[in-house]
């Protein structure tokens, strides 16, 4: 299936504070922009894949979205895989198209935790709340501590991830946070849950983003302007809760990446630019290791010396990622990966022909990978 499906259009709302905007409205705006970008009519859409809004749980949400979009898709539904959902839904759309279950799919996500509810992010973890075990950041902090103790990963190395994303976000006019971060400011920022500081944690954002997926052949027939081929995809599920996970510092991102690289016929050394889910800085370090960009335990040294910044060996999160562009769970990484192949990023990697996306959800429970490239 390598290269048989393409991302034909991308759309993104503003990101940040949007009081009063429902997730439905943000999804519709993102879809409208993605359809415009692809240059197609909504009447062509017969597949609709929607991420379960993390901030606002409700049932039959895909039907709500289809009604709001005024379409009657043949296939689709809601996908509940947290931040891993965007790349996964694109993969399922591509497979549905390959199997003749639909021809043109909209894949969309939106959340409004900034001005809507964010209870989902702050809740206690069941009976363990009696020990003060609350919130998503603490789960990542538990992983980060183990990694730091086991491999000697340093605070400054977590900071290097934040600084790279903030540098890239500062140069993206659409980013929510456009203030670069110095090493001194990082070290001075307060702990949220030690070992994670405020600047290790992603933004909280209202926003939406969507893409149009179709076959490469259909894109040619329709005269789509800038289709970007999907070369590979994969998924992997760690599944265990943090307390139950036999090894806190290894994830099934390795499985997800291996599947995607095999499908694309590529290896980590072939990747020109990567968008790695950066809900927390530690996530990027584990992802670099599990994808094979460096050896296990070497993610800390790998991110030093500007290696992951524009001009480095492997620029990551070139629109700012979750730490600087938007805390939206993952589709902004896909739209930026598309821009890199089109050559339209505000932090363009010169001559990029391969662009990788790592999405993940929960506390590194579930992973998905997408590899895009000029065919």
């Amino acid at each position, binding site marked *: 299936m390598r290269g048989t499906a393409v991302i034909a259009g991308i759309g993104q709302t503003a990101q940040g504070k949007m009081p009063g905007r429902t997730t439905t409205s943000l999804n519709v705006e993102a879809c409208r922009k993605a359809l415009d970008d692809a240059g197609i009519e909504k009447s062509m859409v017969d597949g609709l894949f929607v991420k379960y809004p993390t901030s606002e749980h409700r049932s039959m949400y895909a039907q709500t979205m289809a009604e709001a979009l005024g379409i009657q898709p043949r296939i689709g539904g809601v996908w509940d895989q947290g931040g891993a959902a965007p790349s996964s839904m694109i993969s399922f759309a591509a497979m549905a198209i390959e199997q003749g279950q639909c021809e043109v799919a909209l894949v969309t996500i939106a959340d409004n935790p900034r001005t809507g509810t964010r209870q989902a992010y702050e809740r206690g973890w069941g009976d363990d709340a009696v020990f003060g075990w*609350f919130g998503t950041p603490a789960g990542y902090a538990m992983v980060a501590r183990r990694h730091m103790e086991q491999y000697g990963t340093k605070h400054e190395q977590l900071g290097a991830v934040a600084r790279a994303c903030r540098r890239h976000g500062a140069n993206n006019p659409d980013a929510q946070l456009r203030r670069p971060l110095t090493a001194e400011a990082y070290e001075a920022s307060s702990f*949220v849950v030690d070992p994670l500081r405020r600047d290790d944690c992603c933004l909280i954002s209202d926003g939406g983003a969507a893409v149009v997926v179709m076959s490469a052949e259909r894109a040619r027939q329709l005269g789509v302007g800038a289709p970007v081929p999907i070369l590979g995809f994969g998924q992997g599920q760690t599944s265990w809760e943090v307390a139950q996970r036999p090894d806190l510092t290894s994830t099934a991102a390795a499985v997800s990446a291996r599947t995607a690289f095999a499908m694309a016929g590529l290896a980590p050394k072939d990747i020109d630019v990567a968008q790695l889910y950066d809900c927390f800085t530690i996530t990027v370090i584990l992802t670099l290791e599990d994808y094979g960009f460096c050896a296990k335990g070497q993610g800390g040294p790998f991110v030093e010396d500007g290696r992951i910044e524009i001009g480095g060996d492997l620029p990551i999160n070139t629109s700012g990622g979750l730490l600087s562009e938007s805390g939206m769970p993952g589709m902004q990484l896909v739209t930026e990966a598309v821009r890199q192949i089109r050559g339209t990023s505000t932090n363009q990697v010169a001559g990029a022909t391969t662009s990788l996306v790592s999405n993940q959800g929960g506390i590194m429970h579930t992973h998905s990978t997408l590899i895009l490239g000029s065919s």
Partner: protein
Amino acid sequence: MSELPLPVVTPLTEPYWKGLEEGELRHQKCRGCGHVWLPAREECPRCLTADITWEASSGRGRLISWVIYHHSSDPVFAERVPYNVAVVELDEGARLITNILAPSEDLAIELPVVVQIEQESGFSLPRFRLA
């Protein structure tokens, strides 16, 4: 007056909390395959049978990882910051979330720990001290 977020005792978890009241930390054990785990489940996650019993743990284990909260949106824990939350693996193999009764500068992964049951708001809670 803010209240501690207390566990919800169900028929499934009642033997666990009762054991702690009686001064004993217990884990579940599969009679079929011998697998040991916490927290309480209806089926063994290894062999999927429901032939499960409760068994006393040695209460000894090792520190897997820990975090220190400097901020909490919960009113009770907002008053307790900074406080630690840890993952402990018991010698028998079960893992649980807990607090370590030691200053944070004394903590390191793989340190041996031993359970210390503490009373709070009518519950007996399994916390750990350094062994």
